[in-house]
């Protein structure tokens, strides 16, 4: 087999790309592979020089810990709540923005604000809103007479996950609504006219035409939001630090505690890999079902 000479253009292309590739390797590929590597060792920063190889022991330890499975259950609950609510609210917002009314453009632009706010700013904002002493939520509910005394919102173990999910949903709805709106805009208006002439009132037209047409959009949004929710860390860190009493101790938070508070890098890395693998499997299943239905 003859070896083709590398042309001048190709050589300069390699040269130009090499820098970028090197940076990507350093900041992306290296940490990924390095964390896989250390997940196979018993790494503890309190004894940094002693780092015995333990094989899959870290993984076994994580998977056989009841506390980990409790966290996994909370992650699943949080994700299910968040994704379902994002889907419903984003659909309503998209349908609203699909109508013609004065001020639609301004409203569409305003809608994007929560999405544009940095994650930490969003977290701090909700921390203030939920604050027991001077929070806006207590203020509003007290003034409207729904509650008689200020509540310690994030101190209630039963309310913690829904409240954090609420902050997550607030930030995620805009993007989901825009994605669904794009799908809505692509539905030919003739279909609605045909269904109207066929005798379908507005609600039946929505069920018969809008919902099925939105299905690809739903699957896309569900996939993206599920990935975001499963791995979500910022709000748990900012609002509750896993509390009260472990009520918001999700896997992402547990990874942080294990790694940076317990300084046990080996088990932390193993947990990260388990979470990544679980996300990957879920995405794969969703994409498979998407491909079948499209």
């Amino acid at each position, binding site marked *: 087999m003859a070896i083709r000479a590398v042309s001048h253009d190709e050589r300069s292309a390699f040269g130009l790309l090499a820098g970028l590739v090197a940076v990507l390797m350093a900041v992306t590929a290296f940490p990924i592979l390095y964390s896989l590597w250390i997940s196979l060792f018993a790494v503890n920063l309190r004894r940094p020089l002693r780092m015995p190889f333990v094989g899959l022991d870290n993984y076994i330890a994580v998977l056989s810990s009841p506390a980990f499975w409790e966290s996994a259950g909370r992650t699943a609950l949080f994700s299910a709540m968040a994704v379902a609510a994002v889907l419903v609210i984003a659909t309503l917002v998209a349908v609203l923005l699909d109508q013609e009314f004065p001020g639609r453009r301004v409203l569409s632009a305003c809608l994007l604000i929560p999405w544009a706010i940095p994650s930490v700013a969003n977290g701090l904002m909700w921390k203030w809103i939920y604050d027991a002493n001077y929070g806006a939520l207590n203020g509003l509910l007290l003034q409207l007479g729904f509650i008689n005394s200020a509540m310690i919102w994030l101190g209630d173990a039963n309310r913690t996950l829904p409240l954090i999910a609420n902050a997550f949903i607030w930030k995620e709805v805009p993007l989901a609504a825009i994605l669904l709106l794009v799908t809505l805009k692509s539905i030919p208006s003739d279909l609605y006219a*045909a269904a109207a002439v066929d005798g*379908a009132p507005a609600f039946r037209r929505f069920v018969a035409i809008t919902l099925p047409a939105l299905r690809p959009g739903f699957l896309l949004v569900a996939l993206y939001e599920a990935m975001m929710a499963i791995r979500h860390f910022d709000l748990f860190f900012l609002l509750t630090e896993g509390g009260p009493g472990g009520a918001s101790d999700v896997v992402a938070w547990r990874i942080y505690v294990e790694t940076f508070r317990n300084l046990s890098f080996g088990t932390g890395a193993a947990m990260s890999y388990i979470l990544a693998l679980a996300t990957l499997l879920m995405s794969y299943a969703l994409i498979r079902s998407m491909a079948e239905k499209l």
Partner: protein
Amino acid sequence: MARIRFQSVTKRYANGATAVAGLDLDIADQEFLVLLGPSGCGKSTTLNMIAGLEEISEGVLLFDDQIVNNVPAHKRDVAMVFQSYALYPHMTVFENIAFGLRMRRVGEADLRMRVMQAADKLEITHLLERRPSQLSGGQRQRVALGRAMVREPAVFLMDEPLSNLDASLRISMRAQIRHLHTQMRSTFVYVTHDQAEALTLADRIVVMKDGTIQQIGTPDEIYESPTNVFVASFLGSPTINLLEGALERENGAACFKRGTLTIPLPALQGGARNIVLGLRPEDVGTPGDGPQLHGVVDTAMPSGADQFLGVLVDDAMLFLRVGKDVRVRAGEAISFGLNPERLHVFDRETGRSLRGAA
């Protein structure tokens, strides 16, 4: 069964544009009415107002003796075939056809029977389990017809249903639609910009332009006695020849004058004025007793059954249809006989026909 009446109906859009202005139209029960005109003439808007898809800005629309201005589309007994077919993409052909029946809560057994009957008539029984995306244009068209048919509506509306089909299919579908009309005994309103389609299908044609009616009549009336230049030139292929000239009177008899050309126009009333003379390509014969036309052949275009000649008469180019047996070559002189009865005469200022009836 429904008689449809428009009484001074106007449709104005939010941006101020007027799509239809002061429309008066009476469509008889079980009539096949064709709305014909160029794009933007208001024909589709008129159809959509019957369907209830467009609001009426002014005037009254009646089905039989009921005012339906504010009856929403889904409560009118109307079926419609769209130019885009508008088949529901995620439903099977069967469900597409059945949709209107389901909306009207027709029982499952009856529904199944009616869908099968319609599918049988349209020869699409083997397609019932497919999705619209798996069908050809002609098949989609049939499904769209089937969806409207099963409803057995009082009013059957069609918005350019054949314009996305290829030429041969279009011709055979015309016959099917005509056949459908005789079977269904509903009122048909059909929108098209294709004059040949209108002439083939219609009981009556309504020619529209700029939101107003130009002429209403049977295909023969519209073709033979157009009331103005627009109607005359919109129907017929190739289009009618129009010659600008003057109406003059010689010894009391009217005649058309243009340069060296003089054509007597007996039985035409009125004084001298500028006129437009219309001559259909097929309205020429062999030179005889009557008036004659002399010219020079510019081009000869055989077209199967007959041939078209481009003939230079005076300084005007006329397109004429003659038999194949007329053997001429470019540059040769040629003469034709004219039947003055078949000449169309229009006022040049108003465009209106100067013939008696109109």
